[in-house]
């Protein structure tokens, strides 16, 4: 738990190929860099089986490629922080990203949150937000001491949050929308060892209902009829196919298709705020493109922070 502001030169939101590549470039150029990300398997690359079209890489899964990218950035001292960003201050000279755990400030900010955000909400979700519906177990877990809760999701973020909730809740119902959960083995092991957790594979959360506060949910397990679960809390970490921009809370213009708008250097309408990867829409969704955009934005940001007019390419520098 971190009560202090963490100050960096560059803060990157999202640790997929775009964010990790940007971090590699800024960290390697000596800028103090932080990447804030929800988890390894919360993005498009992290859930991709096998990568066959990233040049120079053969026989690697998405998670393996992403892990390599992150380790490479870390080797140049980029910090990778596990947190979910819920809000930002872009107007001030120093840009700040606020997470569930900490706040991260930088002279420049790169948004690389991808496009696995949710569009439609579940029935009852908005109505009961703060009345049992939550997106942050760290924040709200303690309100559910000895009560039954559900967690919906299938990423390592969802598993992490469920594990945290087992410390408070009487029972945690874990609903994975898919047959399998996309999380590292050790997390899944930890999950299955908890006595107060029940895992429902291929289970859809259909509705949250209550009377002033949440008291139940309707779920649908594949091949079965709708079921009613008595719960007092619903923690939702589901994913979709929308660019993730909700944490911006209207501070940047969004195109009709829901994407961020950038210039040729991937800078948004606000100086020193960049957006790269799947969160912008003017390209095909490919790892190599996202990585390339991360590199361009990183070099542009570095140039500005160092007060140079042109980027310097150091052909000889190698690690």
């Amino acid at each position: 738990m971190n009560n202090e502001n963490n100050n960096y030169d560059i803060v990157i939101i999202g640790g997929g190929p775009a964010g990790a590549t940007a971090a590699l470039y800024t960290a390697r150029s000596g800028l103090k860099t932080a990447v804030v990300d929800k988890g390894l398997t919360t993005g498009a690359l992290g859930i991709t089986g096998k990568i066959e079209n990233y040049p120079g890489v053969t026989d690697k899964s998405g998670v393996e490629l992403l892990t390599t990218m992150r380790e490479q950035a870390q080797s140049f001292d980029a910090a990778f922080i596990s947190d979910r960003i819920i809000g930002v201050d872009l107007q001030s000279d120093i840009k700040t990203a606020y997470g569930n755990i900490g706040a991260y400030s930088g002279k420049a900010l790169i948004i690389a949150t991808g496009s696995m955000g949710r569009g439609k909400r579940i029935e009852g979700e908005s109505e009961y937000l703060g009345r049992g519906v939550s997106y942050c177990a760290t924040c709200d877990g303690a309100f559910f001491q000895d009560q039954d809760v559900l967690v919906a999701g299938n990423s390592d973020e969802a598993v992490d949050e469920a594990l945290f909730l087992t410390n408070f809740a009487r029972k945690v119902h874990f609903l994975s929308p898919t047959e399998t959960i996309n999380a590292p083995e050790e997390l899944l092991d930890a999950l299955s060892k908890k006595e107060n957790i029940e895992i429902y594979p291929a289970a859809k959360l259909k509705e949250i209902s209550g009377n002033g506060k949440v008291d139940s949910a309707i779920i649908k397990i594949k091949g079965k009829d709708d079921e009613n679960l008595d719960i007092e809390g619903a923690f939702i970490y589901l994913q979709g196919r929308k660019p993730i921009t909700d944490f911006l809370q209207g501070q940047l213009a969004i195109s009709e298709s829901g994407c961020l708008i950038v210039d040729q250097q991937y800078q948004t309408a606000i100086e020193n705020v960049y957006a790269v990867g799947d969160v912008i829409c003017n390209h095909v969704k490919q790892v190599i493109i996202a990585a390339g955009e991360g590199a361009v934005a990183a070099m542009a940001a570095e140039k500005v922070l160092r007060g140079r007019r042109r980027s310097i390419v150091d052909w000889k520098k190698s690690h």
Partner: protein
Amino acid sequence: MSEPIHVTDAAFEKTVLQSELPVVVDFWAPWCGPCRMVAPVLDKIAKEYNGKVVIAKVNTDENPQWAQKFNVRGIPTMLFVNDGEVVHSQVGALPEPMLKNVLNEFLEALPTKE
């Protein structure tokens, strides 16, 4: 009162429910990131709206009683209270301009006192 007042469970009734001025009550806890996002905004509002609204803060770790009574199950939750009645509740952090909009709407909709 140009600063937020920290309110205990014991003082809640007098400070919040019996307040002459409208009150914004922020239920928060030290370990909550989104609460830290709201805190500087509320500090600023307390100064700018001095004499128009009271900003009250309740640490739910130390003072859980009223949070429970109001069914608060997520923080930050801000209750907009007038004459002891909750007029509006805002769950989750908002950036400054949006929080001010919510506050202005709340203040404008209040009945004028004789």
